[in-house]
């Protein structure tokens, strides 16, 4: 079998890949794939001013899937020898016993973009330097004020080398280096305890800290906790909401991102099924998912099915233009994948997932958006959300928010969830700022977690339900 040798054939030798793919389809089947992975990670956790723990580990293995018609068989193994892979191939191929469309194999050829450039691999950085970052974070946060009574901080890095080979002849690899840091503070005041947190996460090596000082992360976390000591209960009811650029991107991740994943569409379990070409959002709303966007947290050179990531415009000026696709869902519709097939690890099947999902900037001045809001809520940080794609109902939690009174940001508010309906909220966006920021998050779907980016300019929603306890 002719083959261009890729950089990661040290994981599994090329001739072995060919033999295992052949064995996977021996009893029939339409498609076979090997996903091999070697992941090393390290983390450090500081709490109570003590470096409590350094942890590191390594996971190596391969997942093999065999597709026969609408059925997928999957098996995984930590044994990367040919024998181990053949055993997994046999287990995955068990679903093919009734015979499939027959063997269709193409010679393997390597085609993949270069992974993101990393200048300082975290594995080359002394552990003591990583520990020092956390000690600095602790010091900085505690010096923010006497109200700070507790600080925890975490550092993590990972290097995930993957290799994908399939019976269509694809052979691709990626080398993903990610680094992250978070700080959480507890402040104590007359009204009890409050928390504040901030995080930093990029598809970069240790050079991430050159542009993003740890002290800034710690100060943000401490400031949030202290500010909330004076916070009053959030209002209960419908109010205009101005979302500051950055974490507000969660609203799109939840309000429509999940609903635009083709697996939900094809099962008719999304409110966006059958709505291509229709107006689904206010004019000016252009939503993009782009896994190739710089060193953001959701960036990948190729997805976990070997497909290069790309820029996909999902909503163009309020009109729904496309969904997000993985291999299986695209095959069913006779089109190509959009590079959105992702999995948590070799132990999981890929499915349609977001990468970096963001709303493009508009042309309004963010300050003016606030000043033109007589009464409402200004949300400076969101802490996560959840959606029911079939109904479109979603929640997201505010972790730093203020009242807007007479066009001015005034008193801080305690944490609360906001609730809305995707299509409804998207049609109520009436102002889009000219600023923009991305935010890193972890997205969970069907038990699998992957890193994603969210982003948006400052924007206003004319009315959304705020789940506090005070009268609005």
């Amino acid at each position: 079998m002719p083959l261009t040798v890729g950089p990661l054939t040290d994981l599994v030798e090329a001739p072995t890949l060919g033999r295992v793919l052949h064995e996977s389809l021996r009893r029939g089947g339409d498609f076979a794939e090997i996903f091999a992975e070697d992941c090393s990670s390290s983390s450090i956790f500081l709490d109570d001013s003590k470096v409590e723990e350094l942890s590191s580990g390594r996971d190596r293995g391969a997942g093999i899937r065999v597709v026969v018609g609408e059925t997928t068989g999957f098996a995984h193994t930590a044994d990367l020898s040919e024998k181990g892979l053949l055993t997994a191939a046999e287990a995955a191929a068990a679903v093919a016993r009734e015979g499939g469309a027959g063997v269709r194999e193409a010679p393997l050829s390597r085609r993949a973009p270069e992974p993101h450039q990393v200048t300082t691999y975290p594995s080359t950085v002394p552990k003591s330097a990583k520990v020092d970052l956390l000690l600095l974070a602790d010091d900085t946060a505690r010096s923010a004020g006497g109200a700070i009574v507790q600080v925890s901080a975490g550092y993590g890095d990972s290097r995930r080398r993957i290799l994908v080979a399939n019976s269509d002849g694809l052979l691709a690899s990626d080398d993903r280096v990610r680094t992250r840091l978070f700080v959480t503070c507890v402040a104590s005041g007359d009204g009890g305890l409050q928390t504040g947190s901030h995080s930093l996460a990029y598809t970069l090596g240790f050079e991430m800290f050159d542009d993003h000082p740890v002290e800034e992360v710690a100060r943000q976390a401490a400031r949030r906790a202290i500010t909330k000591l004076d916070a009053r209960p959030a209002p209960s009811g419908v109010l205009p909401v101005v979302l500051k650029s950055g974490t507000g991107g969660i609203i799109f991740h939840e309000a429509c991102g999940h609903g635009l994943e083709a697996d939900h569409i094809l099962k008719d379990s999304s409110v966006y099924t059958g709505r291509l070409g229709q107006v689904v959002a206010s004019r000016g709303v252009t939503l993009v998912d782009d896994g190739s966007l710089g060193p953001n947290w959701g960036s990948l050179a190729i997805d976990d099915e070997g497909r290069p990531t790309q820029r996909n415009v999902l909503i163009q000026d309020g009109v729904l233009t496309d969904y997000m696709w993985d291999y299986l869902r695209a095959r069913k519709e006779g089109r190509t994948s959009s590079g959105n097939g992702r999995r948590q690890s070799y132990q999981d099947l890929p499915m349609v997932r977001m990468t970096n999902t963001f709303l493009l900037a508009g042309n309004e001045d963010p300050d003016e958006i606030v000043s033109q809001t007589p009464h409402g809520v200004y949300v400076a940080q969101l802490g996560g959300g959840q959606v029911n794609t079939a109904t479109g109902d979603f929640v997201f939690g505010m972790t730093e928010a203020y009242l807007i009174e007479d066009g001015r940001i005034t008193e801080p508010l305690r944490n609360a969830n906001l609730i809305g309906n995707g299509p409804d909220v998207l049609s109520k966006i009436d102002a889009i700022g000219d600023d923009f920021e991305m935010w890193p998050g972890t997205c969970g779907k069907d038990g699998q977690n992957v890193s994603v980016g969210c982003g948006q300019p400052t924007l206003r929603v004319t009315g959304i339900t705020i789940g506090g306890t005070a009268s609005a």
Partner: protein
Amino acid sequence: MPELLGLARRVAERATVGEEVEVYVARGRETSIRVFEGAIEQLTAAESAGVGVRVISAGRQGFSYVGELDGFAALEALREARDNATFATVDEHAGLASPDGVEPPVLDLWRQELVSFPTDDKVALALDLERRVRAGDPRIRQVVSADYLDGLGEEAIATSRGIEVTSRSTGCYLFVQAVAGDGDDTQTGFGYSVGRAPADLDIEAAAVDAVDRATRLLGAKKARSAKLTAVLDRRVTATLLGILSGTLSGEEVAKGRSLFTGRMGEQVGVDELTLIDDPTNPLAYGASQHDAEGLACRCNSLIEGGELKGFLYNTYAGRLAGTSSTGSAVRGGFRTTPGVGARALSLQPGRHDQAEIIAEVSEGFLVQSITGVHSGVNPVSGDFSVGAEGLMIRGGELAEPVREVTIASTIQRMLQHIVAVGSDVEWLPGAATGVTLAIDDIAMSGS
């Protein structure tokens, strides 16, 4: 299992003078089947295993893991854990569990029937589940997924302080997600059943639950904002207890990161509130003979008659707080160190079932499910705000369905405003049991 313990022991025996070594070895086998429109959509058969090594030397802790059961790889993890330890802060409270003489409960959590249960029969269960849901009501428009899942888990712990334990358990689940439709209206509901062996699974109950939950929400509207009594469905109560367990972690309390810090012995709830964590009860799916550090599991009383009575501790948290472990170490597999957590929380049941509780409520909201728990509940400040759907209660009767509202209060306030604990205990997967719970003075936000 002797091979798992053997591997753990061989690594733990490498401890040098003045060094403590803990080796946790786990192996699991799982089958996961998803069917769609009468055919298998996915079938996964998988085995996974790994070793986690914790080293404590001169008060410094380090950890490392490897995702395979290989002697050389495990020794590499030991070397790496030792190196990691040299960078940690000296902590006088760091240390492994010492055998404390408490006898572990005798529990049989392994069912050989599951081991030999044929794959074809597993597929048949999932297909049957999907069929029953589709046939359950003409308004069921889609069954997004019908899953059968099972797992066999084995683990061994050996430490240089003389702990050597093994355990094994089986579990299987059915899970189904239904979409109901009526005109333009769409609602969802899910149902499940859990057991240690296939014979424990109640396929009809799972199907009926998914159908009922999806169809009874059809026509749901946003409600007007109001202060009212929330009647939490059993599954919702279990989620609430899970949140509460985080605030009862002795480690969080000792570090000043819990709303219960400094409140031991205080009346934190109504007289009817009694909460225990009892992993020795074989009915609980979180039942276990020993905790994640190898100490015997035991029944811990947390709140009695509304009075705060106890917290949960692993070895480290116990030392930090000047007390001892309550056998409450938990870990999320071989890749992590032991934390503190509950395994089998339950409220002392009251005398009335859900229907009787609802009959006593003049204006209220039966909460069928909640969303946004991770984004809207803060176990430190106690702020509680979650998305909710369910049915209004008027004059003691269930009324119109409601969606897209939130319910909010604080955890502190909710415990003081419990008006009824149900008698309808349900053993659920996860670390808490379900029971109907009515709480008044809840702010519902809607239109």
